[in-house]
């Protein structure tokens, strides 16, 4: 475990050094993510000009939820997104070769090698928005409730990562992954809305097989409406099942990996 932390320390140092080499690109990416945050806040402000409640939440409660998914988004953008974005290209070009001969988990290496330094700055902004939203809410803040919310958001980010990877892993068989990324980003829009606006089989799918509503909505619900053990158990069960599915597809994918001609 300590070895992997040290490895991650190297990844972070290298990535930050590299990101700072290209200053304009660095600040442009920071600005791009900030614009996305601004659009999300404006979007909900406009919605609440039309209605007092959305999925059972008022404006302040929805802001708490929205700040939560901004944190989830910023965590994934900082930690894994760059890596997953280039993953299909690496499979297609045979660039996985060197990762596979290293005596460390290939999944760890491929998922975490590139730390997005610019997005880390945005993660700090997202955390600021998160603190602002919590302070505005009428819910009494305790160390326990805030810690639980933060922990569930981190698990939500882990779910986000697993779903992204599961959706792009078929690249081992398809050889091209741009459409797969498109599918994931389209589906991930579900994460940005409160879960109760969905009903019927769509809602069932979004809390089980495609658990986008678990990533930010459920953590916010636990914070706003109190801890429910059955919901927490469901949340953890989905994570465990998804992780098992991920490993099965990953191992099958490596078996199918054909590298590329030299």
């Amino acid at each position, binding site marked *: 475990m300590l070895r992997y932390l040290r490895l991650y320390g190297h990844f972070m140092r290298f990535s930050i050094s590299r990101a700072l080499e290209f200053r304009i690109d660095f600040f442009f990416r920071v600005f791009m993510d900030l614009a996305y945050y601004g659009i999300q806040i404006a979007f909900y402000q406009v919605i609440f000009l039309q209605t007092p409640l959305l999925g059972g939440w008022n404006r302040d409660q929805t802001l708490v939820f929205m700040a939560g998914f901004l944190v989830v988004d910023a965590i994934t953008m900082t930690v894994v997104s760059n890596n997953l974005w280039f993953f299909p290209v690496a499979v297609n070009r045979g660039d996985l070769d060197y990762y596979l001969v290293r005596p*460390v988990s290939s999944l760890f290496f491929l998922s975490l090698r590139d730390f997005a330094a610019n997005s880390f700055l945005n993660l700090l902004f997202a955390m600021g928005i998160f603190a602002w939203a919590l302070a505005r809410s009428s819910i009494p803040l305790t160390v326990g409730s805030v810690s639980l919310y933060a922990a569930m958001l981190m698990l939500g980010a882990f779910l986000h990562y697993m779903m992204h990877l599961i959706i792009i892993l078929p690249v081992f068989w398809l050889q091209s992954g741009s459409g797969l990324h498109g599918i994931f980003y389209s589906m991930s829009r579900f994460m940005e809305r409160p879960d109760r606006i969905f009903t019927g089989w769509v809602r069932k799918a979004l809390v089980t097989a495609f658990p986008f509503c678990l990533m930010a909505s459920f953590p916010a619900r636990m914070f706003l409406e109190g801890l429910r053990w059955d919901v927490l158990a469901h949340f953890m069960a989905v994570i465990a099942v998804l992780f098992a599915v991920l490993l099965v597809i990953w191992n099958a994918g490596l078996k199918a*990996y054909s590298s590329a001609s030299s």
Partner: protein
Amino acid sequence: MIRARGLSKTFRVHRKEPGLMGSVRSLFSRKWQQVHALKGLDLDVGAGEIVGLVGANGAGKTTLVKALAGIIHPTSGTAEVLGFVPWQRKNGFRKQIALIMGQKAQLWWDLPAGDGFLLLREIYQIPNDTFKANLAVLAAALRVEDKLNIQIRRLSLGERMKMELIAALLHQPRVVFLDEPTIGLDLAAQRAIREFILEYRRKENPAMILTSHYMEDIEKLCERIVLMRDGELVYDGPVAKMVSSFARHKVLTAHLRAGETGPDGPARPDSAPGEILEWSGASLKLKVDRAQAAAVASHLLQTYPVADLSIDEEDIGTVIEAMLGKGPSP
């Protein structure tokens, strides 16, 4: 150290007709073809051996290397490297092998090689003292001590390859796979890398498999050659034996004494037996049947004012081309 039996690998490849219409047709109806990259291949490599893997493009060399390095799963057959099944990718196996691909970089493009080496120290859990000692030895041997803190992208191709070699060998692997390590390098860099590989073999005694299209790599580094064609072994044995068994010609070179050939020099020896490879007036190079080499040498000595005469084997590339059926028939 390396043992493969009946190793086969078949790829399913989509065959697209050329042009836009071919692309449109392939969207609805695809033609697939089975490509047999390896066909039941047997191979053994012991410690201290450098085996040259030679064949035309598409012969299956890189596929064999990638199967033995654990990167791809074979379709059938077995292999053991250091007692491990490569494609199970156990850490105990991966800690003891190294792979160097001349056409793919493993170091971070925007960072100095020294930073990449620190990451590799962590990955391979190399003790700090050993790491420093190994790095010093390798960098000195390749004469790049002063380049360790320069970004990879600012290094020349030769320097980058040297850094790749250091990266691959820092953990003192017992099995080394070298896939085109000198590709694209100038002659001086090629020579430096060959000398380094020989020196490394002398010190560490690893099993090495080398693929290269440069015959000089094979001649200078390998005592044993494995010739591949269409996924099969055509020849597996000593380089010298291959040449003596399969070369049908010898090359005779005669240097003539100046001043003894008249003011216009000697007449071009159009009637000389064999094929004239070079004729300058001062020297003559002939390719002749092996069986006739002695007789032709005697003829040259009697006919021309020969100052010096040498009889050499055909170059290894010509022999290999002939064996693979691409060059002049042997």
